[in-house]
């Protein structure tokens, strides 16, 4: 029996800006129902990779397959198919500030489907209720808290019932409590809506818990691709730097010595 092709498959993606390679031959396959975390240093090309997967950026070389069907030409038709099946959660949420919360969530249904108004209303209210936004329908994004805005963006991403959702640093700039809440929200939404997820993040411990697989991007290439258990025992120095970041910091601080000791010695001289 022939195995199902991956839901999304990138092969040999290359992209350069002003001659500097950002993606340098990235191969990635994501199976249906999987949750993949893309981690890496700032500027490693994580968000660029995500935008290539979403069809927003067009790579200089390489191919993209959706359910085994090539999107290599990235013609308008192919891009429209990709966009209809995927949703993208932006780092800054990208909510429409002149539209109410309800109108924000209803927008993709109004503009991309022929559903009647009552059905759009039902689906929009349903998506908002599932993400605890039922009382916010008439409010504008600026009137919502940071967490509510994030949930609103997620409700808008999920209202079209996409096959997969791309999360671009959903926890950037959040404190640990809110960071956990966002990851919890992603996990709960996956359970509720059953979508495939690709999450770009810097939060390795949380990603290990929430995602099935970790992909480490370094210098425009995939340096590590495996599950949390493999990540925990990897001897790759770049993986170790990510995994043992806090311990390395503690060792570094220890190596600096006791600054108060120097201070007291200087005083006694």
């Amino acid at each position: 029996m022939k195995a199902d092709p991956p839901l999304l498959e990138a092969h040999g993606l290359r992209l350069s800006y002003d001659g500097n390679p950002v993606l340098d031959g990235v191969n990635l396959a994501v199976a249906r129902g999987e949750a993949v975390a893309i981690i890496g240093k700032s500027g490693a090309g994580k968000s660029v990779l995500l935008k290539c997967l979403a069809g927003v950026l067009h790579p200089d070389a390489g191919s993209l397959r959706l359910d085994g069907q090539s999107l290599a030409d990235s013609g308008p038709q192919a891009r429209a198919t990709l966009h209809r099946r995927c949703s993208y959660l932006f780092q800054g949420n990208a909510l429409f500030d002149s539209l109410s919360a309800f109108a924000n969530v209803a927008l993709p249904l109004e503009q991309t489907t022929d559903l009647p108004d009552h059905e759009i209303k039902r689906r929009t209210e349903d998506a908002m209720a599932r993400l605890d936004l039922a009382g916010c329908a008439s409010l504008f994004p600026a009137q919502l808290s940071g967490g509510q805005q994030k949930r609103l963006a997620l409700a808008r991403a999920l209202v079209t019932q996409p096959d997969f959702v791309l999360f671009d640093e959903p926890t950037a700039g959040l404190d640990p409590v809110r960071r956990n809440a966002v990851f919890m929200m992603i996990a709960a939404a996956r359970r509720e809506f059953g979508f495939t997820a690709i999450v770009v993040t810097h939060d390795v411990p949380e990603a290990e818990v929430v995602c099935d697989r970790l992909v480490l991007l370094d210098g425009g290439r995939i340096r590590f691709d495996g599950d949390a258990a493999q990540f925990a025992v990897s001897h790759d120095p770049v993986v170790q730097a990510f995994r043992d970041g806090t311990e390395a910091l503690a060792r570094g601080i220890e190596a600096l010595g006791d600054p108060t000791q120097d201070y007291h010695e200087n005083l006694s001289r």
Partner: protein
Amino acid sequence: MRITHAAGMISALGRSALAATGELGGLALFAARSAASVKRAKRLTGRVVQATYELGVRCVPVILIVALFTGLVLGLQCYVILARFGSEAALGTLVSLTLVRELGPVLAAMLIVGQAGSALASEIGIQRNTEQITALETMAIDPLGYLVAPRLIAALVGFPILTAFFTIAGIVGGWISGSLVLTLESGVYWSAVERALQPADLRECVTKAIVFGLLTTIICAFNGYTAHRRAGLAGAQAVSASATRAVVWSSIVILVADYVITSFVV
């Protein structure tokens, strides 16, 4: 040394010419795509009504004030000049034809660009900066169909109406100067207006209003849409530069288009 200097100048000139050609090509492509998007756009009616309403709300007060004072000044100046030749009775003819054929469409368009065009460029520029336009793309929504198409239709409706408001208010201003402030009989003024205005004049006025509306809406939307491509500028600076460019280029294009249309009509 001189040859190197000259080569540098020619090279810079060439780069500027290429950039200008590229920009013009981009604008033409943007205009064609925006026009095509009108057909594909969904649930357009509500957004057209909203865009037309916003255009009206933003512009009607300023249009009426400027038009009234333009008419007042025109009435005073023309009356004094015509009085030298004993032709005060032609005041209505002069004021109405000047406003309907030239000042009405041109000044109204410039005021609308200053009020609504700059706001359009800024709004779309901010939407570009905050990834709202990219968000539309990722939702399989055509950004031009959603953002530009309703504004184009609103311009098609709103510019002629606002131009009509301007012209009427201007003619009333001329009457106030000529008949209330000065000594011209009201009946003489209004009958001159009635006799002077021909259907061809009104057609010219409406044609100019529609052409100015479409051109300036495209220019303003294009400048906002490409705010992220402003060389050396980013964020709020790029948005403000885009709004300024939109107003400057729209004003220039209004005058050029006015000359072209007038040269065909006259």
